[in-house]
């Protein structure tokens, strides 16, 4: 499957991806000025923390969030392999928050649903990669680490 990778030489840690994810994906107004003033605050799905690196859901091959979700709210799209939250059925039990090894699933500001990156599965291309001013984010095929090296 494809994964989002970050070129560490290009990522400056400018948080543009976070800002746009929060505006375009999380907010209701879809405009920066409106998003900033929204209550509760929109929660972006990408995190630039610790290092100049934009971290989103890695869509794990064996995903702890899928095993922990008690009502099938966390789902994997069989075609793309992308894991997403079916927000209508989320009961805010935070079991997924409890087990996500990357710490990228979080409660919404209203504490009603779990929020995570679905890599803009209903859009053409992930917004974070699209807006990155240095082109640091790109969608690449996941490396097969099990392949034997000769």
């Amino acid at each position, binding site marked *: 499957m494809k994964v989002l990778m970050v070129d560490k030489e290009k990522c400056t840690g400018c948080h543009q991806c976070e800002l746009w994810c929060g505006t375009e994906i999380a907010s209701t107004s879809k405009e920066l000025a409106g998003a900033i003033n929204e209550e509760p605050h929109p929660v972006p799905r990408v995190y630039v923390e610790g290092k100049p690196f934009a971290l989103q859901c890695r869509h794990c091959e064996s995903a702890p969030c899928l095993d922990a979700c008690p009502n099938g709210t966390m789902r994997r799209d069989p075609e793309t392999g992308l894991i997403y939250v079916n927000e209508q059925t989320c009961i805010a039990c935070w079991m997924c*928050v409890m087990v996500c*090894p990357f710490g990228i699933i979080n409660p919404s500001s209203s504490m009603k649903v779990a929020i995570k990156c679905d890599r803009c599965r209903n859009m053409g291309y992930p917004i974070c990669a699209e807006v990155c001013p240095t082109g640091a984010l790109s969608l690449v095929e996941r490396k097969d680490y099990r392949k034997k090296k000769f």
Partner: protein
Amino acid sequence: MRYIIVGGSAAAISAVESIRSLDHESSIDLFSDEETPLFSRVLLPYYIAEELSKPLLNFRTADFFEENKVTPHMGVKVTSLNTAAKTIRTTDGQTYAFDKLLLATGGKAIIPPIPGIDKEGISTLKTMADAERIFNMKGKRAVVIGAGSIGVEACISLTRRGIKATLLEQLGQVMPTVFDAEAAEIVQKRIEDLGIDVLTGEKALKFTGDKRVTGVVTDNRELPCDMVLLSVGVRPQTELAIQAGLQIGELKGVRVDETMMTSAKDVYAAGDVAETHDIARNAWFLNAIWPCAFEQGHFAGLNMAGRKSAYPGSYRRNSIGNFIGIPAISMGVTHAESCAMASDEDEFREIRVRTKDTYKKLVLRNGKIIGAILVGQTQKAGLMSILLKKQVNIADSIPLLMSDRLNFMDLLPILRRNADQFSEPEYKELMDTGL
């Protein structure tokens, strides 16, 4: 290949999915003594709170059996298991043969031997039938006995429906297997703020009333009530395993090896019925929680379908969700003392940070996380969970782990030091960034 699954909850369904990921053709027969398929036990408190209707309790869609080519036998109990002949007998009078069988019979609610326990208006909360009974009780005052996760959630659920509830716990704090005293104090305050009376260190001695319960007599008082909910824990449902002569552990669960196989060849066990190696305790343990059941079912299914996969072990994980207004998560052991199989050389440490609204605690054994409690601020709980699961030394990163700036990228040096433990592609590709 003929597969038989005994049970119809998390471990069973997870095993079906794993079998079907490798084997699309073989027959799968699933037997459950409950009539309602595919509902999530974890959600029963939401049902009695009238927050979720019955269809919304399902964790898989109604066409799951059809989609996965499973023949369901709902409301059919398996009465005997012959591991030599590889057959089962059921209450519908039939005998079925299998090549691989999964025992996922789950747990059953403990009914404490308190005088008057058989009165009307007294129920456990484990099955759909229990939930419906409680839902229809039309009580005004309830006493919930046992302040574990289910007890607390059920108590709050009843309160949300306008029933005046008292929570009774014989130990000195709420959620004694989940939180330490300090976290429990924060949680208890929150429960009380919802209008619930919480009585700890107090034991139910008998129930009063003729036909229907009218009160609970404790060692300090009598609590008038017209309904009682029992939530004092669960025990593995092992009748079938015992009858079949499977090895039973000290904690009365079915012993399984790394492949989730029981002492009988081709007979596997997973979920609340299984006694597994607990990573945090470094001992056999019963972790009757949803994520463990699902994981174990997953590994059992893979092994049953012929792909050798070693289950890394279980560890407790609990989240209180949205019930008390703040998130609270706990995993592994709550105290260093609760660790069995400790040797003299083992060095234990507990680290705590308390602010007005938050509490964070780590329990370490030889520099490795074996327990974590997070109250109020729980966003990076999963990082503790993976470090606990992988049992890597984090002794030099304690300030980072305890701080609010904790994030995954800063843990990369720990992952790199233990690269053989983090062999999954999602970790490798991030280690490869060189950050």
